[in-house]
């Protein structure tokens, strides 16, 4: 039954190639974009840590800056 499913009457190689290509592209794009996001978050945190107290206070007035520092892609970095 499994062999019949994989074979798909001779079309299995085409069907699974198409599905696997799609899923590999999804995974690839997801991990590339995720790593870019993390890299930018780290760069932001590094620049933020260089600020003196007064400038850090000013920067912290913006909610978005606090949010960038607090959150990773889905978790804290």
């Amino acid at each position, binding site marked *: 039954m499994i062999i019949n*499913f994989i074979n*798909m*009457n*001779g*079309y*299995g190689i*085409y*069907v699974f*190639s*198409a*599905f696997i*290509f*799609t899923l590999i*592209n*999804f995974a690839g*794009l*997801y991990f590339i*974009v*995720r790593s*870019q*996001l993390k890299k*930018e*978050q780290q*760069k*932001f945190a590094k*620049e*933020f840590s260089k*600020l003196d107290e007064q*400038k850090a206070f*000013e*920067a912290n007035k*913006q*909610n*978005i*800056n606090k*949010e*960038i520092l607090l*959150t990773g*892609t*889905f978790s804290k970095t």
Partner: protein
Amino acid sequence: MGLFNQSKIFLLTNKYQKFILIFFLLVLSVGLLEALFLSPQDYLQGDSVRIMYVHVPSAWISLGIFSLIAFLSILVFIFKNRNLIIIAKSFAPSGFVFTLIALVTGSIWGKPTWGTWWAWDARITTMLILGLFYLMYLLAWRIFEDRNSVVKITSLISIIGAINIPIIKFSVDWWNTLHQPSSIKILSDSSIHEAMLLPLIIMTAAFALFSLLIFLMKYNTELIKIKTKGLNRL
């Protein structure tokens, strides 16, 4: 434009990314189950018809995203809103990948159906042109450093490229092509059986969720880049 407040959008997108990822994986799982196991074979194409469930949604979404980028680019020219530029730019990577998927899976489907991997048929050629426009759009963002120039160039690429969208859509009606005319019509009855329409809709929903997820992540990346530059200016 309060609707395009960057801080609000960042907070929202950050909050919902995780939910969209989970929802995407759920919908994709159901879609794969329907597409590979539950949907019937085609009476002519047999099991090779299952390639349709990745090929057609990819093509639809790549066309939809490019149309959206072109529309946003027109708005950029009118309103000069910086956020619209970031939104357009953030949609491009997933649009390009969906075009690539549509071309490659179409080629794979072509072999058992038409007996060839590639043909310079009107639909395939215009899709390839769409892929080249996506590539030009993405490369322009990398090549040009002057902000004003890159916005103008990318907007022009997308607006000129949008001329190709109706050509892709109607290519099967205007010319004799290997592709069949549309089986799914919004304004009249579709010729596709509902047993095949259901997995097609589910897979389209899954792919749309994926492009939304990539958009949100890319949008946040772009926003953080801007905020990092802002820190340097404090």
